[in-house]
């Protein structure tokens, strides 16, 4: 098997990224070798229209091997006239959504994929229209027609479960609470969920296409708006990608500010999420306490950066605000938060009726989490020790001492406890960061974006890993921006976790994953 990789041509090595080009016949073997023999994790998979460079589309499959701070990127060229590539989904199930998305966006068909239904586009999107191809454009008549509703719809076939006593419960896409849209079709036997098929992408906004229409510098603002509660992580990963592509090294001070704000973002998210679980069980006091802590941190955010969601801080080349100047404010707020957090955890652990609801429901086994490529809290609560901060250290994470917490049981309780432990870890990281002094200016000068270059940016958001891959065209404008949010990886795990649970427990299970619709739909 190893010789498959030897046959591959190393086309580029940039920082910790190794690009290995393979022939079409070897693509599957190379991916499967990394996955099965080296236990690599499929981080993301995407296509890019590079016809203006060498008349080909490229398929990229990005792997990272645990313990090695390197990305192995298997690259496959797809010629203009054969729009297919070999599917790896049967061997690596984590690829199933990526491949369907490539089909939707580029019209390149993953041969051998077991499920070739549309993923991103819904019924009214016209057939044979592939928006991420460079020669795609939309005319006024098209738009008008779409407004009136396409005549020829592409129907979506839901999976059907047959058998005695099975009935379907359709839920959504509009829900009773003020949440984002998503459609769930349950096949239940009595109150037991037998099968769940979610249909998402109601909030698909064409974000990746949108990135191509603006400069890399303007893209920061867009990246901040992809998923509200992870604004800072997204813009951090995006800036990192562009900076790596431009060959910039940001100053120590900028790194410190980014690390600090990433941890503050994690802290307010985890606090709010632990509180939200209480709303799921009906323990209103816990919910209120969680919301109060979250609000305190968000008010701190506003004092530090004038934005409750930490927007407008990141710029290409560094940060705008030196939040370390307000160290006293951060410390005093974190102290109060720590105290309140302990109170909250005491309340929750003391409430048997609450803990009872969380235990042994929504169990996601390690095996399934691994196969589906789950990330973040979801993966760690199922016993997978994967944290981008440890696996691929960036910013100041290699200097900081912290543990990444895992739990093996994979239920709702485990996801709550992993969040709780990570929150404590974030508190100690924040305290450690503030003690030191850091050298350097806030920003470094950006000399320009080199043509036809590419790089990855990544970080660990409160929900899991986020990846950006950027590539510039000959003018230094974006040729392709690929983003992969954590919710995109974790959504497919939900149906497996709720299988066999009771229908009224679904909202609680779903909440424990804390998935973003907007961040997934893009």
């Amino acid at each position, binding site marked *: 098997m190893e010789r498959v990789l030897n046959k591959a041509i190393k086309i580029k090595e940039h920082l910790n990224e190794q690009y290995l080009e393979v022939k079409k016949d070897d693509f599957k073997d190379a991916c499967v070798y990394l996955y099965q023999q080296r236990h690599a994790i499929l981080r993301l998979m995407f296509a890019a229209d590079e016809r203006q460079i060498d008349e080909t589309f490229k398929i990229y499959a990005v792997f990272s091997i645990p313990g090695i701070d390197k990305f192995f990127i298997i690259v496959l060229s797809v010629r203009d006239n054969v729009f297919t590539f070999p599917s790896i989904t049967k061997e690596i199930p984590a690829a199933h959504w990526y491949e369907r998305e490539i089909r939707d966006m580029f019209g390149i068909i993953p041969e051998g994929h077991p499920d070739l239904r549309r993923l991103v586009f819904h019924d009214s999107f016209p057939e044979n229209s592939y928006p991420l191809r460079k020669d795609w454009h939309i005319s006024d008549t098209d738009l008008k027609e779409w407004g009136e509703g396409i005549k020829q719809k592409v129907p979506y076939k839901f999976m059907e479960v047959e058998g005695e006593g099975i009935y*379907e*419960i*359709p*839920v959504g896409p509009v*829900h*009773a*609470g003020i949440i984002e849209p998503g459609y769930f079709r349950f096949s239940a036997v009595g*109150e037991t969920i037998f099968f769940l098929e979610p249909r998402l992408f109601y909030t698909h906004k064409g974000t990746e296409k949108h990135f191509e229409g603006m400069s890399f510098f303007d893209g920061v603002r867009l990246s901040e708006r992809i998923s509200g509660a992870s604004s800072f992580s997204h813009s951090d990963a995006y800036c990192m990608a562009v900076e790596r592509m431009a060959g910039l090294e940001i100053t120590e001070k900028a790194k410190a500010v980014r690390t600090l704000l990433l941890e503050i973002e994690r802290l307010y998210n985890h606090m709010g999420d632990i509180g939200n679980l*209480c709303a*799921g*069980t*009906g*323990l*209103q*006091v816990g*919910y*209120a*306490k969680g919301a*109060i802590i979250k609000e305190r941190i968000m008010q701190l955010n506003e004092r530090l950066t004038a934005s409750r969601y930490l927007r407008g801080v990141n710029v290409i080349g560094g940060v705008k605000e030196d939040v370390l100047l307000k160290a006293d404010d951060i410390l005093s707020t974190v102290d109060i938060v720590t105290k309140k957090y302990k109170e909250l955890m005491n309340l929750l652990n003391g*409430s048997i*009726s*609450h803990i*009872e*609801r969380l235990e042994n*429901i929504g169990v996601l086994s390690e095996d399934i989490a691994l196969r589906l490529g789950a990330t973040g809290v979801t993966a760690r609560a199922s016993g997978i020790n994967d944290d981008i901060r440890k696996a691929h250290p960036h910013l100041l994470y290699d200097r900081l001492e912290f543990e990444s917490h895992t739990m093996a049981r994979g239920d709702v309780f485990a996801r709550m406890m992993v969040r709780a432990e990570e929150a404590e870890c974030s508190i100690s990281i924040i305290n450690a960061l503030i003690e030191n002094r850091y050298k350097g200016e806030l920003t470094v000068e950006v000399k320009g974006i080199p043509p036809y270059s590419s790089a990855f940016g990544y970080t660990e958001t409160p929900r899991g890993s986020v990846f950006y891959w950027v590539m510039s065209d000959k003018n230094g404008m974006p040729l392709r921006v690929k983003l992969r949010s954590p919710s995109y990886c974790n959504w497919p795990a939900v149906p497996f976790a709720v299988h066999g649970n*009771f*229908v*009224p*427990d*679904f*909202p609680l299970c779903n909440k424990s994953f804390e998935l973003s619709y907007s961040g997934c739909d893009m």
Partner: protein
Amino acid sequence: MQYFQFLIIIILSPLIQGTIKKLKANMQGRVGPGIFQPYYDLIRLLKKDMVISNVTSWIFKATPYIVFTSTVAASMIVPVITTESPFDVMGDVIALIYIFALGIFFMALASLDAATAFGGEGSSREMTVAILVEPMMMLSIFTAAISAGSTNISRIAGSGLIFSPSHVLALTAFLVAIIAETGRIPVDNPDTHLELTMIHEGMVLEYSGRYLALMEWAHYMKQMLLFTIAFDIFFPIGIANNVEISGLAMSSGIYILKMLFMAVLMALIESTRAKMRFFQLPSILGGAFVMALLSVLTYIMMGK
């Protein structure tokens, strides 16, 4: 005056709901809406147009009226501030429970009628709960009925306070029944927006406008009625046995205190506990049923 004591239930029941909500909000660290909010909600709903699914039959349209009128009928039987009730003849506790059951029955039918998934779920769950709650309520009332020597609720209330171990057991069971019947935590969560977890709310999900107002109002009335019955049966202190003004004034004052006590109790329970898993409900409801059964048995065997 005694002819109109049921009006107290009709008029003041939204206020009780508002008070419970306000108390709950304060206990949970929120400001919460004012105690008169349920009135504003009812007025707003009564003014609104209705959206009715076109697959529904007459049952869907008749149900709000049946539920509302049956609850009004139940409140006529129950002595609120005086046991001198003109509807005394009909004041049988067994009749009372079946008048409630009539409302639940039609609500369950109506929620199936619109053929939505949540309606079906709500009605099947409500029925599961109702099956467990009804006998428990009956049995706990029986204890009081046996000791008073009558199933007439005015006569039970008029027989004064009787305290025995079996009464304590019966009262506990009755309180659990109240929580289940009013759709409160830990049985149901009245504040949830999650359709998949709803029991009572799931049943009224298809209603809007005037019909919803009637259903909600009936729900408030039922809640206040159950509180009233609990006091009538187990703690009939302060209720007037005549229709003199001074007695009625005294009785009204005590009645308000009793209702306030129940409101605080409900808010406390709801704020300190999480909702139970649906399939664990039989364990708490079954436990309460056993208590009710034991109370009757001990009363019969020990004679007190």
